């Protein structure tokens, strides 16, 4: 009885279980091999470096569950950052006014992706590949190769912690949004629509699911999240540059897939993505403090991804 329940749990959540175990292993090994790793202040402080990737992992999970992909998010970060910094420093628009506008700009850029994907039926991989170049390019047109400073009052958000904790503000935001996204995917109509669209888009349409609308909203949300990340990054680095966040999309997708979300859509949990993201963070932190060279770190993450995919495939025999 119990074993059959475990069996069923395993069948349903093998990838999540695999990454959870890997996370615990990574933590134990890092702590055992490198005592300097076990330092809460350091761990939390260093984790803030990955906040934006962590946030994007959440929205990318929804996108991939819906059977799509969004490569353009990191370019949206740069572009929105460029817009905000330009409006602030060249047109003197107050920064507090621009903060809430960032997700709006990002959302608009995401909606453009959504339009091409949902209304023109173009493959999201290629559409967002194109907008990835386009948005990055527009950021570059705006800023050239120079940096624009953000006001000092608004920088350094990562150094503000919750009282009596090591929790830096970006981490607090991330943890909050983890819960929000978990609720969004697993507890709302929107989330259900996302899942069924990933499972079978045609049947979703026949079932009265507003597929196109769901996708446009989803890409808009993805863009808006990138907008939020853009503000965090601006505050963290104090400058806007066109080349910010470049290449992070691969880390984000790696985390999502590592967390057991099917790249073909229809299956995935926020829990899996969160654990996978933590796993990557822990592995990188562990290797970083142990002085492992950057290139080995890159290789290790690739191997980790393969390991997780192969493990959960082999053990469940899922097609």
């Amino acid at each position, binding site marked *: 009885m119990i074993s059959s329940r475990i069996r069923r749990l395993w069948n349903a959540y093998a990838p999540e279980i695999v990454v959870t175990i890997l996370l615990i292993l990574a933590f134990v090994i890092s702590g055992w091999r490198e005592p300097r790793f076990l330092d809460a202040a350091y761990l939390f402080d260093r984790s803030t470096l990955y906040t934006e990737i962590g946030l994007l992992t959440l929205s990318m999970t929804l996108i991939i569950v819906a059977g799509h992909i969004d490569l353009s998010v990191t370019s949206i970060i740069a572009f929105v950052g460029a817009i905000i910094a330009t409006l602030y420093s060249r047109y003197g628009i107050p920064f507090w006014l621009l903060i809430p506008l960032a997700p709006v700009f990002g959302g608009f850029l995401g909606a453009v992706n959504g339009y091409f994907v949902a209304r023109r039926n173009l493959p999201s991989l290629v559409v967002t590949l194109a907008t990835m170049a386009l948005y990055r390019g527009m950021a570059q047109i705006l800023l050239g190769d120079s940096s624009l400073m953000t006001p000092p009052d608004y920088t350094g958000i990562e150094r503000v912690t919750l009282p009596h904790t090591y929790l830096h503000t970006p981490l607090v935001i991330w943890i909050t949004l983890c819960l929000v996204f978990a609720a969004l995917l697993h507890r709302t*109509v929107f989330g259900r629509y996302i899942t069924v669209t990933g*499972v*079978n888009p045609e*049947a979703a349409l026949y079932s009265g699911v*507003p597929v196109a609308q769901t996708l446009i909203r989803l890409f808009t949300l993805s863009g808006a999240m990138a907008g939020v990340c853009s503000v965090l990054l601006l505050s963290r680095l104090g400058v806007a540059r066109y080349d910010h966040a470049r290449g992070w999309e691969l880390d984000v997708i790696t985390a999502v897939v590592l967390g057991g979300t099917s790249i073909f859509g229809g299956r995935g949990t926020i829990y899996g993505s969160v654990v996978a993201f933590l796993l990557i963070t822990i592995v990188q932190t562990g290797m970083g403090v142990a002085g492992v060279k950057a290139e080995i770190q890159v290789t290790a993450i690739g191997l980790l991804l393969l390991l997780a995919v192969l493990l959960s495939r082999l053990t469940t025999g899922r097609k």
Partner: protein
Amino acid sequence: MNGINGAPLLRTTGLSKSFGAVTVLEDAGVELRAGEIHAFLGENGAGKSTLAKLIAGIYRPSAGQIERNGRPVTIHNPREATELGIALIPQEPRTFPDLSAAENIFVGRLPMRSGLVDWKSLYGRAEELLHELGVALDPRQPARSLSVADRQMLELAGALSLNAEILLLDETTASLTPGEVSRLEVILRRLSAAGKSIVFIGHRMEEIFSLCDRATILRDGKIVGERMISETSPEDLLRLMVGREIGEKVVRGSVPTGKPLLEVKGLSQPPLFHDISFSIRRGEIVGLAGLVGAGRTEIACALFGLSQPTAGTILVDGKPAEIRSPRDAMGYGMALAPEDRQKQGAFLPISLWENASLSSLPRLSRRGWLKDSVSRTLTTEWVKRLSVRCREIEQPLHELSGGNQQKVVLAKWLETQPKILLLDEPTRGIDVHAKTEVHRLICELADAGMATLLISSDLPEILALSDRILVLRSGRIVREFDRSEATPEAVIAAAGVSTGLPDKPRSMVA
């Protein structure tokens, strides 16, 4: 080559196939002989396609044996079937759009010369084959530019190129024009004369009578008879196929009167359908009969907002309805159980209750938050009410049989509390027991006031359930029958079948 009375090229004994709990074919024994065109007849879901697919290696039998030339064989996949000289031509040919016609014929075994594809010989052989078939078609043409009929010819040519002795044509004529059908008939007769054994699966009586030598009739997964065509009549075959008195199991109440709930006026969407007008009253079941391809499904889709008609109006409760999406249609109380359950109705990997509650989520939620416990409770009720056979409602849908999947799809729609139910082939591919249950449900719903549009290829079903029957031919409504005047013969005739109408000699789907 063996004559009609020679030893069979292929014989099956006790062949059975079940999917999960549902047996779709039981104890089937047939003999296929050289030089003979053999019809498999039966209603939808009777098991004729299953039988063909077992022979062609697409399915593997649950029990029974296949003998080829007297030797027992096990056929694991279509490739092994082709090696045994067995080929199946499906209704919708599987073509490789960017390959040439010739390659489509020879794909997987292109002629090679010193390691290279020998295009000259490829085109030569393809031309020869196509010539043999009497098809005028450039083998160099890419397949994407060919019609369905021509692409079927490629499949046929492919089978012949393999020296297939047994050709199974699974509803091949369903999507062909009359001219294409007669061309195919000529070709099949020639092949049969050359000693091939041909299995013809189709519905049109006049095709069967003009083409076939012998017929095996299946009903509800069992073989119920075998006839030499020369010794039988369409009526005889129909009776065998239907097998029961029409309308014996369900009893419809009095014909409802009152104002129409759904009115359709002059709906057109060329070239699919033209000038469609009809109405359905509260509590009325209107059957939409016609051949496959007559435009029945397309009308349902247009009503449900899946496609946009170019002309015409739809009125619900006397008021014009703007329907641009399924969402809009649902807003007017419509529901559509689609034709292709696997592709359009079901979400196989997710749970039963998630399937059943999907279309009612706006109601089963508060401000966008799901009320899953309510959904589960309601699904449990539907499972009971529709007698869905399942272990638990958390089970993924793919673990259920076809009939039970269909019940879940129906539950999904009934959960939306519709006023107008559009049912497209609601009992296709489900077992007899489940079918009766679905019929009873449809009547119950109508008695409770549901306006139902019933599209079905199952003539007894449509005759038994409908208060009125509309007959569709080539996208137009050609006749309307009242319950009292509808007989199988009359409906078949109206759909354009055995009366021998010269223009479009198409037969009713039995």
